[in-house]
Every structure is written in C-alpha cells, then in structure tokens.
C-alpha cells in the first residue's frame, strides 16, 4: 500500500492530467448529433491507434539481439499503424459523403 501512496505523490502531475483529460474528453464529445456518431466513433478509434507510438518506442529501445521484444514490437507497430491509417482513411471517406444540398 505504501508504495502506491509514494507512487501517487511522485506522479501528482500525471494524476492531474488524467482527471483533467477526462473532463476535456467528455466536454468535447457531448452533444454531438447522432448523424455524426459513426464517423466520430471511427475517428476516435483511429486516435486509439496512438498505441503505435508506444510500439515504436519498444522497438527503438530493444536490443537488436532481443528477438522476443523485436518480434512482438514489430507486430504491435503493424497492428497499431493499421488502426491509425485505416481508421482515419475510412473516417475521411465517410465524411466526404455527408452533403447538404444548396
């Protein structure tokens, strides 16, 4: 238990950031019209591909002889970037269809 209290006091900033980000996320998303729910969701889904940054960090930090870390890192980068590129591309494709007639 003690270690966790030490961790939190050492990482107060992170705790602040987490809580404030939750509020930002909620405020930004609420009141979005239902017409945009699908693009929003697929856009948010693309954003969650931000894990690819971590996957790249894992690969950069790996020993070139550590095949275990490199293999898993490689797969993680492929999957993460797939989520990012596919997610943003398909969101863009959907949004292109939303038109208002003049």
């Amino acid at each position, binding site marked *: 238990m003690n270690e966790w209290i030490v961790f939190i006091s050492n990482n107060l900033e992170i705790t602040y950031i*987490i809580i404030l*980000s939750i509020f930002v996320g909620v405020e930004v998303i609420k009141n979005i019209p239902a017409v*945009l729910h*699908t693009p929003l969701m*697929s856009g948010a889904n693309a*954003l969650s*591909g931000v894990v690819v940054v971590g996957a790249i960090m894992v690969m950069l930090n790996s020993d070139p002889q550590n095949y275990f870390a490199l293999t898993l890192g490689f797969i993680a980068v492929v*999957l993460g970037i797939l*989520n990012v590129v596919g997610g943003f591309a398909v969101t863009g*494709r959907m949004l292109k269809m939303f038109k208002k007639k003049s």
Partner: protein
Amino acid sequence: MSISLSLIYLVSIIAFIIGLKKLGHPATAKNGNIIAASGMGLAIAGTIFIHDLQVPRSIYILIGLAILIGSIIGGLMAIKVKMTKMPELVSLFNGFGGASAALIGLVEFSKDGGDKMITTTIVSGIIIGAITFSGSMIAWGKLNGSIKSVIKIPYYNTANNLFLVGIVAFAFFMVTAGANNEVLAFALLAAGLIYGILFVLPIGGADMPVVISLLNSLTGIAAAITGVLLSNMVMLIGGILVGSAGIILTIAMCKGMNRTLGAVIFGTFSATDSIAGTNKTLGTIKKTNPSDSAIMLNYATNVIIVPGYGLAVAQAQHIIHELEELLTKKGVDVKYAIHPVAGRMPGHMNVLLAESNVDYSLLLEMDDINAQFKNTDVVLVVGANDVVNPAAHNDPSSPIYGMPILEVENAKHIIVNKRTMNAGYAGIENELFYNDKTVMLFGDAKAALTSLVSELKNM
C-alpha cells in the same frame, strides 16, 4: 525525453482535441479528421526521429517496414469496405489497437524490475488489451455473420463475472507477489483473451451498437494505461480522450436501448430472456400492394420515412433516396426519422443514407420528430421493427418495455415494409402491424421500393 519531442507531443495533443471537437459538427467534420490525423502523423514521426538513443540501422529498417505494411493493409481495407460493412471494419481496427497495447505490455513485462506500480500498469494493459482484441474479433465475426451462436446457458453471466473476478485476483497476486515469470504474463494474456470471447459471444445482434462503443472505449483506456507505463503524454491523453468519448457514446446507446451501463458490463446483457406477449390476440393484418401504397404516398402532404437495418441489408439506401426525391418533386414534404440504434453501430443509418446523397438536414433524430408523427399523413417503415414497437410504451411485460421508440402509431396512416411476419431481433410481436391504420407491404426492401418508385413515376 528531449524538450523538442515534448513540444511535438503537445502540438499533437492539441490537434487531437481540436480535431475531435471539429468532428462533432457536420460542417467542420472533414477538417477535424484531417487535423487529428496530422497530429497523429507528427507524434509518430517525432517518436521515430527525436531521441538520444543509439539505434542500429536494422531496427529503423524494421520499423519502416512495419509502418509500410500496416499502412498499405489499413489503407486498402479503408478504401474497399462497403458502407454497410462499416461496423465490422471499426471492430476489426479496434481489435488491432487493443492487440498492440497487449503486446507492448508483454514486452515491458519481460523488462520489468518488480516495481509494483509499473507491474500494475503492465498487467492492466495486458488484460484490457487482450479483452478488447478478442472481444472485437468476436464482434467482427458476429457482425459479418460468420459467428452466429447466441449462447443461452443458465448462470452464464454469473460464471462470466466470476471469471473476470478471477482474472483481477490473479493480476493482483502477480503485482503483490512481485511475480516476474513470463509464463504468468502469457497466462494472463490467455485469460484476457478468453474473457473477451465469453463477454461478447452471448450478445445479440440488436445490442451490437452498445458493444462496439464499449470496446472502442476500452482500447482508449488500454492506450492510456500504456501511456502511463511509458511516461508518454501523447498516448496518455489521446487514450483518455478516446476512452471518455467511447463511454459517452456507450451511455447514449444504452439509453437508446433501455439498458444501464452496469447491466451491459455485468449481465442481463443477452438476447431475449423469454418471448413475451405472443399469445395475445392481436387481430389481423392488412396486406397492401405497391400501387395502392404509391397512391397513398402520392396524395399525402407529408411523409416520414423510418429506415431500419432491413433497409441496409437489402442495400435499398439508394432506391429510398430516389423515392424521397420523386415525392419531393410531387410536392410532398418528406423527412427521415432515425432511431439512435438504427443499424449496427451508433449513427450507422445516417452514414448509409449519406452514401446515397440524402441531405443530412432531412434526417431527424427521435426526440425532434416524435411530436411530428400525429400531424403526418403517411409513415413508411422500411425494415425496422423493435424501434417502432408500441409495446415499449404500453406493455410492462415486454422485454423492450421502457425503450424509447419512434411513435409512428400516432400517424394517420402507416405503411410497413417487411420481408415476412417474423419477429425482430428482440424476438417479440409488434402490435403496430395489427393496428387499424397499418397496412403491410411484404417483400424485400429493395424490390418493394423499386416497384413503388415505378408506380409513382406512372402517376
């Protein structure tokens, strides 16, 4: 971490927030997507090129190769997918994000020195990533029809919840015991994967919008946890943004289906418990044909179209737009009423209609249009069932009692297009079909609408 990389991450985070904000308004959504994508590109490029590490060239080549492969596959999938298949694709991508987080957790576990807090983030990253991955894969399979089973075993939910408690207890043991055996990490991964399967497998088709939002939110949380682990702000904040956005959409979907979030996560979240209300005498139905329906529509002053998933299955979104244009040309006031859970993911119906060039200002949400039904001459229901079932209002024994519905029964005339008299996903009878004001136009949505359009053209 160098100051320049930190600044780059800050710019990316601002781009994420502005991008998400702009995604929320029809006029700015396209720009929002581009801004968010640029922020992501910046964060990825910064991570690769700005650091003090001595990285051998071979690793750079591997990273480049991975990015190339992922981009090509992702891009191709995004270009090729049909709009009716959008929910499957989002599930699939979502699962990949979760898998990526779980793999990072596995690698970090092998480097972990036994610090309890770090181990906590690692094990939670592995569990949540694994659940998201396998859950999304099952959702994908169910949505594209390759997995059909809806399990109905007594105490299934209880067993499932106990399993989840077991996983958490196991993870807690790993943290407190300072376990650093990699076999345990793989066991945890396997347990997470199994739970994800068990969680999504019993869920019926109509509940899919809730599940997809929830899984989407979980991937965000997995990304945020990985961000804490690697002390990486862009992952942390990006992940939390997605997590909270997903939770809000999930709650919106729950309201649309009359469920609570707790019920979604911990049980009573399966297809029908019982088939209620079938023995009531509901009267008789009245059949109609395309030419009579065309006459009704032609002489109406206002018409509301209620599209359901049946329309999407029949690929009838283009022909319905043709019908709408034709009626508008004849001076009929035509609108669409969209139920929040019409389709297989939140807002899916809107995308399908947008694909066929329907003006989005004609698509009205449930709360805005419900008051208008009583002044409407004709309502045309195409492939929708449970979302227009009056039992949600007046039959407390019905499983959908309390669910918000489109109150089409208030309109003067109702035309319902369905393939057969089979019940909807909830498996219950719909007394709307037996209403005196209702006529049934049986047939595949596309075929029925096509003959309606040709009848109208001849008038």
